[in-house]
């Protein structure tokens, strides 16, 4: 099936709040979004049915709940934002679905369950719920299950709090399905999903003297298959792979990934643009992908000294770094994601553009997530940014790019060619239609 042609479009305008995270669950049936207001919205894919052939696999709202509320830290006199930084689904173990959602300080485990049947014909109480008079009960009956309007409810089952002094940037469920890690700017903690009052600190890069702090942790992830392995990336463009079997405190990495700097392109902004904003293992577990400001790099876990593939996301911004530093855009944290087969990768850019790269054909495409330019069921048109002096028709010049329209969060269905793209406060879902 063709990777680069997306057809169906579903735009889900959410409320005014900016979407801060997007994540498919393991089957792809559910899609969760978190926003700046601490709310989680879960979409469910409609089952295909012969009655409605055109609504193949549309995503509709399944559940909405308030995950986090703003808090106030009285000791520091600072507000703790309710913005959801990350959502990670747990593997499904029963009829209910579970996910972890986190803000800067607290991680919560939510269980989402649905009821679409109710029992009728109880012996001891009547339909109102009032107890029946025992003397009036003359016969025994078996209650029957009758369908009812589907009711979805979310309840917080665990609250993992007070383990992070700094802002949590990542959570990652381990392949053992029992533990997960959480990372803030200076520390990585390991939790057991059942235990909320304790966590193990496995990485601590806080210097004894804060004056010496020059590097922070920017992202962390568990290996998809080896439950003892995880990686964390830094603001200096390095990735450390650690083995939890080696020591209780994984300060010494097993592997250290860093690409040597190109001296010819050195500038005052070199370090800032090398800071890694996201790290993701491939589904196979053989590779990992990192996103820095201008590029996406694919690393082979067996080769530490350089990435095996590098993709330029928006190289035309390299000459604008000073302006982007001034307006703070240079600190934007873009995420990246793999497709199910690990053959393609996707990441966002500015002007509501997002980019997809095919690793096999080395082709890439720039698409735009905007309502003006795409109607439902329309084919998305490839976009191009003109870098030279001459601007062709349909191209957009670098200076016309809207840097307020940034696509930081994207997600790819684990099995199919369905992608979710968060553009500020709108969620776009694109599907690949196979005729």
């Amino acid at each position, binding site marked *: 099936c063709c990777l680069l042609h997306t057809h169906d479009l579903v735009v889900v305008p959410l409320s005014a709040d900016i979407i801060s995270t997007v994540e498919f669950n393991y089957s792809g049936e559910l899609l969760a979004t978190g926003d700046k207001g601490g709310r989680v919205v879960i979409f469910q894919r409609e089952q295909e049915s012969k009655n409605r052939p055109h609504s193949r696999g549309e995503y509709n709202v399944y559940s909405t709940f308030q995950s986090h509320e703003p808090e106030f830290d009285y000791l520091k*006199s*600072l507000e703790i934002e309710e913005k959801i930084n990350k959502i990670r689904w747990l593997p499904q173990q029963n009829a209910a679905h579970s996910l972890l959602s986190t803000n800067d300080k607290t991680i919560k485990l939510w269980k989402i369950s649905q009821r679409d049947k109710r029992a009728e014909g109880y012996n001891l109480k009547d339909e109102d719920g009032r107890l029946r008079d025992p003397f009036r009960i003359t016969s025994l009956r078996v209650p029957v299950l009758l369908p009812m309007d589907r009711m979805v409810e979310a309840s917080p089952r665990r609250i993992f709090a007070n383990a992070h002094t700094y802002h949590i940037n990542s959570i990652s469920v381990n392949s053992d399905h029992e533990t997960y890690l959480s990372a803030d700017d200076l520390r990585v903690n390991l939790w057991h999903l059942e235990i909320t009052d304790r966590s193990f600190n496995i990485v601590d890069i806080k210097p004894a003297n804060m*004056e010496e702090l*020059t590097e922070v942790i920017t992202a962390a992830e568990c290996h998809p298959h080896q439950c003892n392995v995880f990686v964390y990336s830094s603001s200096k463009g390095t990735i450390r792979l650690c083995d939890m079997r080696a020591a209780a405190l994984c300060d010494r990495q097993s592997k250290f990934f860093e690409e040597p700097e190109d001296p010819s392109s*050195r500038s005052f902004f070199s370090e800032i643009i090398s800071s890694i904003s996201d790290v993701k293992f491939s589904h196979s577990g053989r590779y990992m992908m990192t996103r820095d400001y201008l590029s996406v790099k694919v690393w082979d876990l067996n080769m530490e000294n350089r990435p095996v593939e590098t993709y330029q996301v928006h190289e035309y911004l390299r000459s604008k770094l000073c302006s982007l*530093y001034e307006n703070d855009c240079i600190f934007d944290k873009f995420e990246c994601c793999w497709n199910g087969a690990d053959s393609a990768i996707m990441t966002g850019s500015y002007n509501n553009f997002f980019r997809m790269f095919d690793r096999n054909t080395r082709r890439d495409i720039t698409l735009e997530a905007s309502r003006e330019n795409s109607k439902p069921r329309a084919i998305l048109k490839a976009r191009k940014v003109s870098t030279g002096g001459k601007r062709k028709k349909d191209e957009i010049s670098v200076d016309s790019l809207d840097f307020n329209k940034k696509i930081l969060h994207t997600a790819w269905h684990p099995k199919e060619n369905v992608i979710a793209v968060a553009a500020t406060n709108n969620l776009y879902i694109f599907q690949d239609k196979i005729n």
Partner: protein
Amino acid sequence: MFPKGTKRKFSDSREEPVAGGEDVNQSSLAAVRMLSSYSLQRQSLLDMSLIKLQLCHMLVEPNLCRSVLIANTVRQIQEEMTQDGTWQIMTQALSAANAAAQCSADRLVATEVLCRQTEAAQGEQVPKPFPVVGSEGCPAEEVLEEEEAAAAEVGMTMSTVSPQAPTSYLPGTFGMDPCWEEEETGEDDDDDEEEDSEECGSGSEGEERERDSLVEDTRTAEQVFGTFEIKNPAPSPDPALEELFSDVDASYYDLDTVLTGMQSVPKMGPYDLLESLSSHGPSPLSSSTSCRSDLNELDHIMEIIVGS
């Protein structure tokens, strides 16, 4: 924009090949211009970075990653300026201009100072112990001349840069009057730096040491209080500042919170007054000259910010 390529060193421009007599003048002139332009850009990047570090404290804890990256950028610039010799030149120029000032030119700014994170015992800091970086990164002769010219710009920059200073910085003079006006701003900076979550007035030892390394005596509580009462009953409303705080819930900043010393992050604007009052509890008496040296040091800070 910063040009790609290797950094230009001050000495490199002198080593460029020359063809003839006139060419010598032309090429060295061009080299100096190029150097000045690069130095100007570098200086403006430094100023921009310092402003970013200062303005990153609001109601919510600032982003540590961003602060660290900006601090590293500042340090890079400092290191390069030290290698260029520009740093030392400016130190000398400034200390020549400020006889009473005590500065240490060798000290590179530590990350902690540049972007102190809100740990329990620390607050967001103004990059205080910047010994120099007053004027544009130009050779010494130009420094002295340009200080006058830059001064006019400084006034304008000040009001946009520092929300704490609705009044403009009077350039060139280090006498008493400008000092008092200046003090309103500078005092806030220093007060904020001294502020901890510890009790008011005691301050943290580390900060005391830091202050002492640059300034010999501390100012008097009376002078501070006096200054504020006489000169500055309440800061004048700054429209930019109003806008900045339009969505801040003021109930968080009530006097109780401030006076119990629970504030660990310096707040900007109208509440600074309350904070500085609370943080200056029992301070030792000292002479008025110490105040002046403090104020000169505050001038340094402002110069850093505006790059005069």
